[in-house]
């Protein structure tokens, strides 16, 4: 299945648009619907798989779509679940995160095929995400201490995301659809 075969450029543009849209839905669905229960961590140990899906989207489809999927997918989650005031922060933090992962994983024509770079990309994105959230929360709380509380949770989420993204991307990369 080579999707480029004989398809016009308008078709490819349309396809890009739709893929981005579906990645947004996927990130949203994984955030809302998919949880793993860890023996540790905040919120009763429930960690959602949204971050993992964000990583996968960035690694499979590069920085632009990764950024869109992350910022809009998770932004939408905030909007629809009572965390509305977090949405602007999420849009920036997750957008940057998706962009960084994609940019590094897709640097120099790697197209997400190098596990090392994928890993490196995810690692680099984590502090960025944590810092953006920290800054945003300090504004809405008007305080520098309270937002520290969300850092451990963010780290756990990202760690789980990485643990998930690596094997899933490995398998996906081997399917003929994504060659």
């Amino acid at each position, binding site marked *: 299945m080579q999707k480029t075969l004989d398809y016009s450029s308008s078709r490819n543009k349309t396809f890009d*648009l739709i893929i981005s*849209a579906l990645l*947004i839905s*996927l990130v949203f669905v994984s955030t809302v*619907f998919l949880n793993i229960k860890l023996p540790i961590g905040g919120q009763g140990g429930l960690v959602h798989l949204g971050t993992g899906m964000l990583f*996968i989207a960035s690694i499979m489809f590069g920085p632009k779509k990764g950024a869109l999927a992350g910022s809009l997918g998770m932004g939408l989650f905030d909007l629809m679940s009572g965390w*509305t005031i977090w949405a602007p922060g999420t849009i920036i933090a997750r957008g940057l995160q998706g962009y960084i992962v994609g940019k590094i994983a897709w640097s120099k024509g790697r197209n997400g095929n190098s596990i090392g770079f994928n890993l490196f990309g995810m690692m680099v994105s984590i502090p960025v995400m944590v810092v953006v959230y920290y800054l945003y929360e300090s504004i809405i709380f008007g305080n520098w201490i309270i937002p520290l509380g969300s850092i451990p949770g963010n780290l756990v989420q990202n760690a789980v995301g990485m643990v998930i993204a690596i094997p899933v991307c490995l398998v996906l990369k081997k*399917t003929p659809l*994504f060659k």
Partner: protein
Amino acid sequence: MMEKMIFGRYIPGESFVHRLDPRSKLIFVFAFILVVFLANNIVTYALLLAFTLLVILMSRIRLYFLINGLKPIIILLVFTFFIHILFTREGDILLDLGFLKVYEEGLRQGIFISVRFLVLVFMTSILTLTTSPISITDGIEVLLNPLKKIKLPVHELALMMSIALRFIPTLMDETDKIMKAQMARGSDLSAGPLKERIKAVVPLLVPLFVSAFKRAEDLATAMEVRGYRGGEGRTRYRQLKWDWRDTLCLVVFVIMTALLVFYRN
């Protein structure tokens, strides 16, 4: 689960707030977030609070939904309050327990910041409770239209968002089905030792991803044969209507801002 998420937020209705144009609501809420930071004394905070309560009343949203939406945040709110009490050491001492001293300024700060936080959460919630996601998207699209000049693909972003919204229920169903199918094959995300649960992620996410990709191909074909080739020359079926309510709403907002500026220290 699915129903809860999708419709738990937007509650259809006919109130004044519901009937506002999404553009005016968006402008209003966005400006409100900025203006909130003007408040710095009792009068101004009281003004904000009163105003927020007025909007809540006018939206005719049952308090139940607002409070319910607040649940995850309540702990943070309490926490914020106490942090301010503990760490601010100015003004008179109101309470002295030896190891803990509560200062007047601390209490004030605690209350102010909590009110600010509460007002922000309520106001943004009202937006999402009274406006469907698709209307929000429409509103944002039209508001961002001027940015087309700097090559921001506003139309594409809006269409993308609307397709994403339309596919959320479909993909939720799909997730549920794949999850069940893999559970029936002995791989379970929700039970068993941690290692097993993490291992169950691959059989779930891979088919989900593949299926989304195939849907994208089908949808691209369908859109293409229905004549879609980018935003140029397209007309709009969804029309937004700006009427007196919206103008009134912005006028009130300007007055409120003026009062805030007037009464702040």
